[in-house]
């Protein structure tokens, strides 16, 4: 990995003032970007990569805009946009120098390549794939493409984007799109199916729900869940059948999962027809135990407004009046009690017109409204959609967008804690400190046994990123294996290649 960086590379620039906000930071941890010089790993030429850090440069970086808020790409590329982060953290996570080191030493390009290429040998699935880079000055570069992992890496290091997104595989190389005779010859061919689920607070239940449905109902296998850096998760489905689905089918899958309709204002958002579809029945079963937790954590019905909303969603007028009366006398009654009150009050027979079935159904709808995962429906509908790549750094939190789980391992999802996701600054520190600790002679050498030979450790293996990359690699391995089996089978089956005779 002996890449020599040109002197004039962009990392010299301080963080762009174009980003919104804020403030400088006397208390910024004086955690300087890792100094390659202090690392005592023999034989590693990485130090050559970086010129000695100027004192000036360091101060400049520390004094510059902190808490660079993630901005949506200026173009209307339909990527998921992150919300603004309260600027309490003063660490400059999107500090270009940090990012550069991250890309240079830690980002698993080869893994990403194989995941998108579906084969160890470079092919069109990668070469004709669109990448979109958000540059440090907020410029948005679309239609970038690369033949190999190495070229991708070189370009990322050159541009040092704060983030980059992955798009579809096109019919031809995106860079050549303007040279084509007919514009209709350039169109998306395939792409992983993606879901973007917003979690108001992280929990694995909803991941589990969607994962189960995708595997059991649709028969998809190669599903990996990626933490989106702050408050959401992305699911990426790499099954070949999934990748080749056209927009109509993607819309169908998205619709299948859509339960909440309508905006935040207004009436009932969940209006399901009865009898409930098996997917909904299953979902209710999964979510029901979780509802109590939501009531306790979020207290949705405690306030007057919340209570009014609850009553608005219940069908029986007399019951509602009785409940309102009861709650008027106990203003801070917790949501869980109010929820229990509904059935209790119903049983007293206060309403002669009560339709128990309607009440039950209304309660089911309410439960779903508060627990069912919220999908960003636009994300999954079209192939051309661009979505943030795994392993990029979230500029607001500094955390790496690591995989949460794959292969339907829901226990792992359960164990996931967003607060334990490594931050880029920590990781770089870990690389530097590797081997300087007391433990492990092997570690100090930076070599590890790999079968017969000794292999030099990659930097990410020295950090907390290791388990995440290993998870990703395992997923990719399974994916590649199944792809190769399929290719072999198709070759056997298909005696004759279809001729494209056009004569009618």
């Amino acid at each position, binding site marked *: 990995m002996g890449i020599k960086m040109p002197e004039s590379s962009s990392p010299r620039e301080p963080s762009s003032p174009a980003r919104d906000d804020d403030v400088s930071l006397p208390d910024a941890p004086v955690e300087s970007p890792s100094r390659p010089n202090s690392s005592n790993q023999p034989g590693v030429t990485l130090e050559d990569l970086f010129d000695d850090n100027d004192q000036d440069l360091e101060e400049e970086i520390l004094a510059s805009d902190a808490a660079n808020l993630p901005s949506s790409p200026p173009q209307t590329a339909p990527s998921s946009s992150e919300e603004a982060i309260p600027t309490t953290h003063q660490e400059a996570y999107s500090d270009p120098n940090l990012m550069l080191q991250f890309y240079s030493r830690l980002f698993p390009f080869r893994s990403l390549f194989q995941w998108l290429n579906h084969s160890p040998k470079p092919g069109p699935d990668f070469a004709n794939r669109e990448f979109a880079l958000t540059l440090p000055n907020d410029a948005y570069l679309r239609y970038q493409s690369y033949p190999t992992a190495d070229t991708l890496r070189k370009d990322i290091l050159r541009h040092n984007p704060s983030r980059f997104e992955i798009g579809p595989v096109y019919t031809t190389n995106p860079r050549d799109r303007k040279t084509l005779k007919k514009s209709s010859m350039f169109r998306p061919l395939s792409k992983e199916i993606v879901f973007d689920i917003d979690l108001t607070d992280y929990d694995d239940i909803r991941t589990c729900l969607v994962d189960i449905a995708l595997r059991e109902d649709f028969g998809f296998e190669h599903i990996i869940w990626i933490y989106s850096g702050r408050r959401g998760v992305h699911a990426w489905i790499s099954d070949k059948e999934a990748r080749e689905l056209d927009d109509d089918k993607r819309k169908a899958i998205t*619709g299948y999962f859509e339960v909440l309709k309508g905006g935040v204002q207004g009436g009932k958002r969940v209006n399901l027809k009865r009898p409930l*579809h098996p997917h909904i029945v299953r979902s209710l079963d999964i979510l029901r135990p979780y509802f109590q937790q939501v009531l306790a954590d979020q207290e949705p019905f405690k306030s007057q407004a919340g209570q009014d909303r609850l009553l608005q969603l219940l069908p029986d007028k007399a019951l509602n009046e009785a409940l309102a009366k009861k709650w008027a006398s106990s203003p801070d009654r917790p949501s869980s009690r109010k929820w229990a009150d509904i059935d209790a009050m119903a049983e007293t027979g206060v309403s002669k017109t009560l339709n128990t079935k309607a009440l039950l159904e209304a309660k089911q709808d309410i439960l779903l409204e508060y627990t069912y995962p919220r999908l960003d429906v636009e994300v999954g509908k079209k192939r051309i959609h661009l979505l943030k790549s795994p392993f990029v750094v979230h500029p607001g939190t500094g955390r790496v967008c690591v995989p949460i789980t794959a292969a339907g391992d829901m226990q792992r999802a359960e164990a996931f804690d967003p607060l334990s996701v490594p931050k880029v600054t920590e990781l770089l520190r870990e690389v530097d400190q590797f081997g300087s600790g007391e433990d492990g002679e092997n570690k100090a050498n930076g070599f590890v046994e790999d079968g017969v030979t000794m292999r030099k450790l990659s930097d990410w293996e020295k950090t907390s990123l290791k388990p995440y990359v290993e998870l990703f690699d395992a997923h990719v391995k399974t994916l590649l294996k199944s792809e190769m089996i399929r290719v072999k089978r198709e070759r056997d089956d298909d005696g004759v290649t279809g001729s494209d005779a056009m004569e009618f």
Partner: protein
Amino acid sequence: MMRTDTRFDAKRKKVDYKKTQFATATFKEQDYPYRLSFYDVPPTQEISLEEFETWAIDRLRILAEIEACSFRNKSPQETAAHLEPLLKKYLPLSSNSAAAGGIIDQRLRNERRKDHYSHFILRLAFSGTEDLRRRFSRVETMLFKLRFQADDSRERRAFVESLNLHWELVQEEEKRELGEQLLSATPGLRRLEDENWFKVEWTRVPELVEHRTVFVRKGKAYVPMREQTSMVLTEFANRLEKGLELTARALPRLDEDDRLTPILNHLSKNFATPDAGYSESDSALAGAPISAANIDNLSQHFPLCMKHLHSTLRKNNHLKHYGRLQYTLFLKGIGLTLEDCLLFWRQSFKLITDDQFNKEYRYNVRHAYGDVGGDVNRRGRGYAPYSCQKILTEHPPGSGEAHGCPYRHFSVDNLTSMLQATGVHDREVLRGVKEDVEKKRFHIACNRVFDWAHKAEIKKVKDEGTWGPAELETIVHPNTYFKRSYLLRNLGNLPKQDVKMEE
């Protein structure tokens, strides 16, 4: 339909229908086992040029009627009833049971051959542009649906089986195992025994999956038999669309000797959209007092779009360009002469000088009437008054503009206010209008208002039998609205005339 081969291919790899479509053309007598067809295999026999043209025209007649019925929002039953005599005349297609002994005789074979060939000829004619392809595919699917639903159920089932669509019937054991889920996913079904399901790749029924109306497991959708029709139709439409695209790509390379091209061009030109069939005789009202002075009074008969233009004109003493155009053409359509029209605009634009009017507005009115300039072909007639379709789809109004269709271009609240201002108070009607607008059936909303406003008169002509159903068909043109409104309100006054509206 040469499908006998594929039936025995079940064990071998599945045959790509696309390949069969482009298989080397062999000149053999086609065997048509069923009246229905997916038109997978193109015709290969020779026919005369006259047959080529007549068969195509006959089919075109049918397709044009179907499109007109759809635009007029006729129900499937109404459409079928309307089409029945026409189909019998131009494109008969009898079922096997209609023939003696159920044997396919020459008569049946001829019918099916004509159907087969005419379909493919029209494919050639209508694959050229995306618009034509879309419309062709749509009406052909409607025709297929009509025929499918009218088919004898035994033959229909045999036909569907022959299609080899890889629909696997769910066996009893699996049905029992999945019983509860199958029932939940099939609304309206009480007992498992009452229905059968078949398994298909979920990608074959994306809409059913999207709306969660089928049970899905391991990538297979469990579709109840009752959905079979919609699936067959979807399959038909998909294959046709694919076929049309392939045809479109092949068109430039056709080995043609100039006998067919003129016929094909002529065919595609005749596939006119329903609105284009407007002719002047349709709106003429002999003896009616259509003059500049009377427009205010006559505006009571205007549809809402023109009422709005008129009231805006009166309010502002001005109208912007598109509003003037839409209104002028309408006025021409109701029978206002060019002279009177110029007078009308001059008087309405009362805040400007003669000079200004002559310089900026006069020419355009004359142009609209065809009195000057423009296309030589239109000289003398000018542009046709805009149909509802045109008004709905072209040039949505911007700020300060009053043209367009209020049912579409106004917000619901503003629309309601406007209706109330023009005298529509009935709550049912207003609610109905709201629903129509929500469903984007704007001209239906307008018709609803018309029917309510002329309730008494309509009842009268119906009871007395003086007006037939053709005269009370859905209004799709503002001038039709005017004419009908005027006639209904002046039933005793006008000299007896032929009120048949031919469009």
